[in-house]
Every structure is written in structure tokens, then in C-alpha cells.
């Protein structure tokens, strides 16, 4: 620091002290400000819970809880109050139908791709395939919905002649395709983290790569793999645009994949695009449905965390 001739040492000390005290203020203020930003994420969770609970309580003051869980019809827009029925199982069955189809598609392809990438593929192939899977994972769901509606549905209609235009099969398959990259990449991570010494041991004993993958690596990485399935299922339950575009809007208590259905998410979309005015029972019903959806996905996410913690093999 250059000392100007007119300034005495005392002035300099004073200046430095003043500077330090403002510096100290910053040092004290910054952690507080940063803590406040961190609180925002907690507030978000509280906001979600508060929103869902408050509006759902209002809904249940108008619709009996027993009707909500026991009736199998969901007719919020029927004319005449006495004809309106709010039985969530009609929407839950649609959601489960799509989720089951998606799982049937995603698990074999996702796991197969993961085994190939982690056990068979050369480094070069991995370097090409992994980014492509990332691209698939980054495609907006509205694009997948468009694909289901304009490509998969017409294709399925050729195979199954009396398939209605809106059905559970097409969005189910496409939701499955959507979650393949997620399952493949998480399972691949789980299998790749099994130490190489174990691989070398098995190969030295004369195991083929297939025996190595199925009998050694798969059991060793099973917690991560199952957790990836559960996370994929959770994503399928909450998926919205694909089922809204290709699944239809006919709440239908069925487990027949060739029927028109409605999922919890697509009901929320339908009701929010203008069919439910603020303050009506229909308006509050989207929160009751949202609450059900939230509980389903929360259980799946907690389950995934529990599995990956409880059954992890430590090396």
C-alpha cells in the first residue's frame, strides 16, 4: 500500500479500521443471507404441503372422504350436483395401468442397456451411447406425447384394429421409452461401481461375461438397480403430458390397456385448462388429486432411498 506523504500513520490506521469493520459486517451478513436462500427450499416443501393440505381439506368438507376412496367413478363435470361422483380409484387405475405398461417396457430395455454398457461395451461405444441416452433423457415430455399421439397410436391401431384413438397402451409404451435412459444410466452407475477385482476374480475362475454379469455383478449392484426401477416408476406416476395427449380424458376404472382412460395428472391438466372455475368443488378436487399423486410419488421416492441404503453392498 502506498503511503501518501500528507497522511500520518494514525490516519492510515483509522482508515484500515473503518475498512475492516465494514468487512466484518459483510463477513457476518453473508452467512445469514445464504442461510435465507437455503431456507427457500424448505419453504417450497412447506408450501407444497400447505397448499395441498389446505385445499384438500376444503374439498373433503364438500365431498365425503369415504366416497373419494370407495367409489369407482370420477364424474366431476356431470350435470346436476347429485350426479357428480368423486371416486379417485377411477383415476388411480388409469395411472397404475400406464405405470405398469411403462415398467414392462422400461425395465428389460433399461436393464439390458445397462448390462451391455457396463459389462460388454468398449470405452468407445460407451462414449458414443451415453451422450445419446442423455439426449433422450433431455427431450421434453410434450415431444414424447406428440410422438405417442402421431406415431405410436396409429402404429398400434394397425396391429390392434379396434383400438380407440385414445388408449392406455400407447402412452404407457412411450412413458416406458421415456424412463429407459434413467433406468439405464442409474443401473449402469450401480454396476460400474462394483470393483474390478471382483470381475477379474470371476473371469479368472472361467466365468463367461454373461455368467459374470448375471451371477456376480447383478446381485452385487441389486440395491442400486432396484432403486433405479422405483425411481423410474415414480417418474411414470407423475408423468403428465404424454398421458394427457395420448391417454384421453375418460376416467375409467379398468385394467384393460386398450381402453380410453384418464390419469391423475391428466385430470389436473383437464380441470386447470378452464373446466373448473375458482371456488367450485371441481377446483378443489385438483388439489385432492394432486395430494394423492404426491403421496404416491413420495412413498416411491422414500422406498428408493430406503432400498439403496438398506441393501447396499459395501466394498
Amino acid at each position, binding site marked *: 500500500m502506498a503511503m501518501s506523504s500528507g497522511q500520518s500513520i494514525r490516519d492510515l490506521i483509522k482508515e484500515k479500521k473503518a475498512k475492516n469493520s465494514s468487512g466484518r459486517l459483510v463477513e457476518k451478513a453473508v452467512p445469514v443471507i445464504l442461510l435465507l436462500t437455503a431456507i427457500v427450499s424448505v419453504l417450497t416443501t412447506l408450501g407444497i404441503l400447505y397448499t395441498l393440505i389446505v385445499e384438500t381439506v376444503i374439498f373433503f368438507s364438500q365431498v365425503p372422504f369415504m366416497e373419494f376412496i370407495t367409489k369407482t367413478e370420477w364424474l366431476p363435470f356431470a350435470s346436476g350436483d347429485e350426479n357428480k361422483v368423486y371416486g379417485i380409484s377411477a383415476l388411480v387405475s388409469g395411472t397404475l395401468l400406464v405405470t405398469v405398461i411403462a415398467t414392462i417396457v422400461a425395465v428389460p430395455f433399461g436393464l439390458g442397456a445397462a448390462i451391455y454398457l457396463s459389462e460388454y461395451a468398449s470405452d468407445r461405444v460407451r462414449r458414443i451411447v451415453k451422450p445419446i441416452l442423455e439426449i433422450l433423457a433431455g427431450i*421434453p415430455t410434450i415431444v414424447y406425447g406428440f410422438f405417442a399421439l402421431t406415431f405410436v397410436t396409429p402404429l398400434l391401431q394397425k396391429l390392434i384394429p379396434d383400438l380407440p384413438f385414445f388408449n392406455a397402451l400407447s402412452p404407457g409404451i412411450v412413458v416406458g421409452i421415456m424412463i429407459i435412459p434413467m433406468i439405464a444410466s442409474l443401473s449402469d452407475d450401480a454396476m460400474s461401481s462394483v470393483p474390478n477385482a471382483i470381475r477379474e476374480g470371476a473371469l479368472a475362475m472361467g466365468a463367461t461375461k454373461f455368467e459374470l454379469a448375471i451371477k456376480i455383478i447383478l446381485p452385487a449392484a441389486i440395491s442400486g438397480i432396484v432403486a433405479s426401477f422405483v425411481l423410474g416408476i415414480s417418474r411414470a406416476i407423475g408423468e403428465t403430458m404424454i398421458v394427457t395427449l395420448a391417454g384421453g380424458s375418460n376416467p375409467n376404472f379398468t385394467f384393460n390397456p386398450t381402453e380410453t382412460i384418464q390419469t391423475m395428472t391428466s385430470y389436473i391438466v383437464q380441470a386447470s385448462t378452464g373446466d373448473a372455475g375458482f371456488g367450485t368443488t371441481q377446483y378443489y378436487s385438483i388439489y385432492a388429486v394432486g395430494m394423492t399423486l404426491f403421496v404416491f410419488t413420495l412413498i416411491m421416492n422414500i422406498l428408493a432411498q430406503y432400498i439403496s441404503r438398506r441393501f447396499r453392498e459395501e466394498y
Partner: protein
Amino acid sequence: MKLVDQAQVEKKMGSRLINNQIFKTIFLIATLFSLVVLGILMYRIFTQGYEFLSADFFNNFASRRPSNAGIKAAFIGTLWVMGVTIPVALIFGVGTAIYLEEYAKKNKFTRFIQMNISNLAGVPSIVFGLLGLTIFVRYFELGRSIMAAGFTMALLILPVIVVASQESIRAVPGQLREASFGMGATKWQTIYRVVLPTAIPGILTGSILAFSRAVGETAPLIVVGAFAYVNYLPDGLLSTFTVMPIQIYNWASRPQTDFHDLAAAGIIILFIILIVMNTVAVLIRNKFSKRY
């Protein structure tokens, strides 16, 4: 005593090797399946949409006649919403990450925040829409506006940005911090002048990927109340609006195939935006990735 029966092993060897080959092929097919689907999807969308791509498509507003319809209002609307989302998400996301990595003590409260963030990442996006509808649209009385949508989107991508920022702050080596402290720098000076500049490429890469998710996200904004038919440009943060994915949804959900082609054209534009954002993210990662 023979431990291994040589003849037995040799007899089985052939079928074991064949099995290995068969399953290798099966696993390869499973891998190729995704790539083939991606190829079909891209091919379909480009062949359907390219003829609608023109200057008019960019300059026209929504219309009931497919030939006159354009994406201008939705494109500008997306820019406005992202204009709110990006700064809000960055400030709160990076702030949270700095707090958790540099300041927070390892206690229950910190673990709670951390657990809370990973749980938020698993909440379906449409539930964030319900949050936005009640809190921003109704309680804060922002209405069905750009601001309400931008805030909702920011909360949606917040967990992704926090996790990405945490990872890249954690990757800053301890020696850099110690060197800075050793030179007499305070904690905040160290964070601001040493840790953040080192971590910023990683933070940006992760954040841009989160923003590109926000650009394509549809469901929460439908709930918050983006309009499907907008033929004006937003004039402020409290203006009503539409965004590209919602315009695409609107076109795709109509029965006429001409509108489907329009939707495909919109998707091409959306893809171009996403490719540009992802390329920028990769470039940043490659240009600034230093090893210590």
C-alpha cells in the same frame, strides 16, 4: 481326487459360450432400441414440420388457420418466463449450495435441508404447478402472469441447480482455500474470489441443463395458467402469456393433421433452442475444465 471334471467342463463350454453370445446380442439390441426410437422420433418430426418452417412461422401469432399460424407469441413468452426463472433460480440455487458446502455445520438441520432438496427433486412437476397456482397466482395476487410462471419454474429446477453447484463447489481443492486463508483473506473473500471463480464452469454447466429442462416443461405452466391462444406480445412481468411447449400442446391436441404439422414445426424450434443450450453447456465444460 479331481476337483474339476475336465470332460464335464469341456462338454458344457460350448453352450456356455453360445449363451454368452446370445445374451450379448440381446443386451446390444436393448441398447440399440433407444437409439432407434430416437432416430424415428427425430425423422418423423423433421419430415412433418419442415414445410411450416419459414419466416412467417416466426412472425405470425396463433391463428385458427394453420397456414397463418406462427409461434411468435410463444417464443417471446418463453424468453420472458426464462428471464424471470434464470436469475431467481441461480441466486437461490447457488446461494443454497454455498451455504451448505462452505458455512453449514454438519448437524441435523443441515441434513434436513439436504434431504429436503433431494426429496423435492422427486416431486412431480405438476404438483409444483399446484403450488404456483395457490401461492403465486392467488396469495401473492400475481395472477396468471409471467412472474408467477417464472417463480414456479425457478422452484421446480432449484434442486437440480443446488445439487450441480454443490458438486462443483466440493470439487474445488482444499489447498486453494488454505492458500487464500494463508494470504490473510477472510472466509467470504475466499469464497467470492477463489472458490466461486473455480467452481463457476461446473455451476453453469449444471444450471444450463436445468434451464433447458425448464424451457421444455409444460405441465406446471398449464396449471399456473398460461393461455393457449395468445395473439399479442407480453408487455411486462404481470402480463398473461403463453410458452412454446404449451403452444405445441395446443396444436398437437387438435384433430386436424395440419395442426399436427405445425406442432412438429414448433418442436423443431424447441429442439434448436435445446441444442444451442446444451452445446453451450458442453463448451463451457470443455473450455474451463481444469484439473488441480
